[in-house]
């Protein structure tokens, strides 16, 4: 309890935050506006109010009491520099192994990161599809069927390649969102998603402007947000261009809804935030994204064997940018469908008569050079990789790098991601002990971490093949299965009546958290760890190293604590896990049932613990 209070005092000197427990909840709420100012008092009460550990006693607010809270990480047996290296690795990639931890310690995080960012994208969806014969026109009807989409994505995420690039690409896939749910109405739907994944990987450490253009002209995005088939307006019929992409490219992919300061806060006018665009801007920009369709120039076509009058291009067409040249479409036309009207948006005017390519250049340049892009993009990438509530200074430091990488280049993503991952704020003891720092690990990222940590995937089998996004089943999330372009969760989501709300914090990933998904995840991880989950198909986790040290429960838990949670289990949690694991008797060698149960038990207990789930 004394440690507890000391911690509390130390932290509250730095920051004001509110702890809501059974006792303080009502008091805090009654205080209303004073809530933040009163935090040291609230905190002390909370600290003293600890009831039975793990008590699930029903009560009005049903919040369990806090357990005694020592500061994390300095656990016995885990060296601090190991923990720090793992902390970095679990943001910059999906896993932390003994070997990668050693590398980071040897060469330093920056050199290590530079080295990995320079590695080319050596494992692509294109290769996967080719190696598995999924680019063939045959009875599997890949040219209309997306059933291999999940298999492809899980294979690419669970194995091989450059995990740093993939981790960042996955974060980008939650910013530039394309979803296979419902299925894209496009030829070769798996290829379309695969090509988009490759664009994100190839562009992850390139320039934002190029990535933005690649994203805009990707067939998957074109179909998802209706650029494909978007025709110029027609005065006579009253038809006007589709506004879908024009709106979302501003709201979600570049500038957002409100004018921002460099630190991500809203600019204000008389105290009111300033909207970045009006609907007339959407209407003007919509004309830019007219007249595009899939480019089949240089690509063979074939008739659907079942419906000979329907012509398909070969899969290669899905890897080409959309074209505004109607002679290159599957159903070629002679007249361009690109609007030649004047296009006015955000104070930019594309003169009447300007063609598709030049209009796009002007439009994307205008969006890209908007001062919002740096803070808007950087804040969300920090949220995906490091913490849900970055300080304004953290955002500003990264946004400045976005604006100028130090060599006068804007939008250098390798510099931006370095700034995000190496920022001084995220590696300190202070942030480790800050009760607001960190984020909920995403379900998909937890599963990938498990898979990559324990060799789940091998090239010799089909691997994981399913969509895990069904609500409250298995994971409630699956790559490229967002329910809408707004991703699985929104950057400003706040759980209702929460401690986060009382502290004016956001908790995006909590949009997936409810009374069922919390239980679902535990059942999922138990049956993943024991290898019995039907979703594993023929995959089996490999616990060779862990089984060999399973007779030493402390060593086993130390190893797993370090690689899974960067040593962030608190002593109370560690002790509880060590004692439970120790209770399982070991009678024999490597394949002894007791050894296996110890390993499986330790992994499950760590991966369901609250200490692990909130990545600090």
């Amino acid at each position, binding site marked *: 309890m004394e440690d507890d209070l000391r911690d*509390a005092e130390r932290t509250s000197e730095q920051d004001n935050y509110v702890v809501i427990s059974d006792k303080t909840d*009502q008091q805090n709420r*009654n205080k209303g506006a004073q809530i933040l100012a009163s935090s040291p008092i609230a905190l002390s009460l909370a600290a003293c109010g600890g009831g039975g550990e*793990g*008590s*699930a006693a*029903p009560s*009005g607010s*049903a*919040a*369990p009491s806090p*357990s005694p*809270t020592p500061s994390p990480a300095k656990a016995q047996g885990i060296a601090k520099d190991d923990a720090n290296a793992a902390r970095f690795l679990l943001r910059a990639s999906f896993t932390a192994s003994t070997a990668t931890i050693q590398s980071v310690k040897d060469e330093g995080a920056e050199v290590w990161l530079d080295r990995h960012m320079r590695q080319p994208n050596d494992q692509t969806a294109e290769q996967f599809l080719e190696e598995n014969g999924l680019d063939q026109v045959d009875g599997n009807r890949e040219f209309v069927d997306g059933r291999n989409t999940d298999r492809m994505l899980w294979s690419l995420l669970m194995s091989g390649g450059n995990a740093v690039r993939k981790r960042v690409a996955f974060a980008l896939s939650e910013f530039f969102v394309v979803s296979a749910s419902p299925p894209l109405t496009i030829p070769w739907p798996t290829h379309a998603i695969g090509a988009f994944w490759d664009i994100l990987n190839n562009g992850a450490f390139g320039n934002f402007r190029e990535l933005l253009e690649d994203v805009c002209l990707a067939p998957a995005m074109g179909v998802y*947000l209706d650029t494909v*088939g978007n025709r110029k307006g027609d005065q006579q019929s009253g038809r*006007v261009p*589709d*506004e*879908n992409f024009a*709106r979302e490219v501003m709201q979600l992919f570049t500038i957002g809804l409100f004018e921002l300061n460099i630190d991500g806060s809203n600019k204000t006018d*008389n105290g*009111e935030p300033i*909207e970045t665009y009006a*609907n007339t801007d*959407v209407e003007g920009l919509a004309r830019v994204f007219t007249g595009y369709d899939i480019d089949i120039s240089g690509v063979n076509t074939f008739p659907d064997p079942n419906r000979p009058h329907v012509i398909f291009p070969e899969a290669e067409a899905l890897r080409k940018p959309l074209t505004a040249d109607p002679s290159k479409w599957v159903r070629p036309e002679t007249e361009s469908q690109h609007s030649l009207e004047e296009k006015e948006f955000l104070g930019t005017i594309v003169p009447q008569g300007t063609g598709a390519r030049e209009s796009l250049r002007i439009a994307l340049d205008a969006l890209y050079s908007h001062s919002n892009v740096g803070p808007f993009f950087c804040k969300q990438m920090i949220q995906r990789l490091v913490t*849900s509530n970055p300080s304004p200074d953290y955002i500003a430091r990264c946004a400045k790098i976005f604006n100028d990488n130090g060599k006068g280049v804007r939008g250098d993503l390798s510099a931006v991601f370095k700034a995000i991952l190496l920022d001084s704020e995220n590696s300190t003891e202070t942030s480790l002990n800050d009760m607001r720092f*960190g984020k*909920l690990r995403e379900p998909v990222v937890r599963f990938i971490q498990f898979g990559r940590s324990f060799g789940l995937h091998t090239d010799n089998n089909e691997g994981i093949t399913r969509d895990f996004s069904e*609500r*409250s089943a298995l994971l409630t999330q699956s790559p490229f299965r967002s329910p*809408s372009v707004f991703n699985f969760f929104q950057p400003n989501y*706040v*759980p*209702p009546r929460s*401690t*986060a*709300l009382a502290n004016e914090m956001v908790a995006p990933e*909590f*949009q*997936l*958290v*409810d*009374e*069922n998904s*919390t239980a*679902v995840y*535990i*059942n999922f991880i*138990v049956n993943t760890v*024991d290898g019995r989950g039907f979703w594993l198909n023929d995959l089996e986790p490999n616990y060779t190293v862990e089984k060999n040290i399973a007779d030493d429960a402390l060593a086993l838990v130390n190893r797993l604590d370090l690689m899974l949670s960067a040593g962030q289990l*608190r002593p*109370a949690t560690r002790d509880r896990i060590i*004692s439970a694991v120790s209770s*399982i008797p070991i009678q024999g060698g490597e394949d002894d049932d007791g050894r296996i149960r110890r390993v499986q038990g330790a992994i*499950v207990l760590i991966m*369901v*613990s*609250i*200490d692990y789930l*909130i990545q600090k």
Partner: protein
Amino acid sequence: MYIGKASQLSRRAFLNRTSQLAMIGTAGAYALDLAGINEAAAFSTQGDYKALVCVFLYGGNDHANTLIPYDSVNHASYSRIRRDVAIPRSALANSVLHLPDGQLLTDGQTMALAPTMPRLKARFDQNELAVLLNVGPLETPLTKAQYLNANTRAFPRPRKLFSHNDQQATWQSSGSTGNNSGWGGRLGDLAQSANSNAMFTAINASGNALFLAGNQTLPFSVTTQGVVQVNALKSNSLFRSTELSGALRDVILNHHQHVLEQDYAATMSRSLTYAPFVDDALKNSSVPAPVPSNSLSEQLSIVAKLIRARNQLGVKRQVFFVSIGGFDHHSNLVDAHGDLLGKVDAALDHFYETTKAMGLGDKVTTFTASDFGRSLTPNGNGSDHGWGGHHFILGGAVKGGRFYGKAPKISVEADDQVGRGRLLPSTSVDEYSTTLARWFGVSDSELASIAPNIGRFAFRDLGFMHTDREP
């Protein structure tokens, strides 16, 4: 933001309730009996059961192809504007909603439902379905001239119009932009004293939504299969070890003081506490199978099951949230939209029939909401984001067979639209929500806690519900 005296009103109700809760202190949730607390001033229950079910149509429902002008003059205007996405008049003959005696709509319109909604057409004919025309978020009544006036301080309008996520939030919070609660949740705040189990006041059968978040009320989440329990805790064994399962219980609840850890642990704790109880209650509750391949019907089916188990759950007032997505028809409007409306038609009709069979047809009121309506002008084969739209209210307590609100002109130039036929709402979400709230039992003095700006609008009761109260 306009809130007038609402903050004071809602704050008073809120503080009262808070102190009452504090008095009860550590009473177990199952036994938490707030029914004895006198809330008569804020809320009226007469021992009966009532439920409101919000059906959210995610993506922005195309109102103009949901309720289509049928009279020849207005249908001609509609066809001229909508072109390729217009539904031909000949397809509408069986779904015309005949006006009751004495009701006249703008420009002499008659309206038909989408041809894929025959069941709701029949409910309208049986006076069980009401149509609310051109409703949407407003801060204050607004004319087109005021909308076009750059002085947004004098003529405020909801922020971030036409944006999906923001307008979902605005609809669900009822006109109070930036609010962290929804009006379903605030209804729950007032109603939960009627329930011996406050936890089951607001129930979400869909993904997390602002609608059910109250200041005190927390939505409880169910899946279409009911509730999920942690197998290792249910069996008290993990990998054949009770030590491991015991440790599991501890490590999923030990939350230390980290803000996000506290919030995760709180949800986890609710799950462990209530899931077994709900599971038990649902075991004894059976309802007719949902409409096949209809996710909305599956959600409504679990809602019906919970309603059937209401006594076991200890509830007399409940607010539910269900949803169906896919309404963002920038393309393929005609086919895809019709199919979706067909699912809504089948699901709502089936659910209403189920509640009637339980003898609760007039105790359960189902209503629709959506991000926004859409543009009347097509973009080819779809439509774009709008503002006001049309909505349905279904149930035995509904004064159905009529239209409420004001029919928009079929025009892209009129003063009830702000361009491309995007409707400027003539009825506010506040008026919609308070009408439902009054039926639910909220006293007039507390309506502003449900709809902060209600005092600025003409009606606190649009009249589409049977109540014994003066409108």
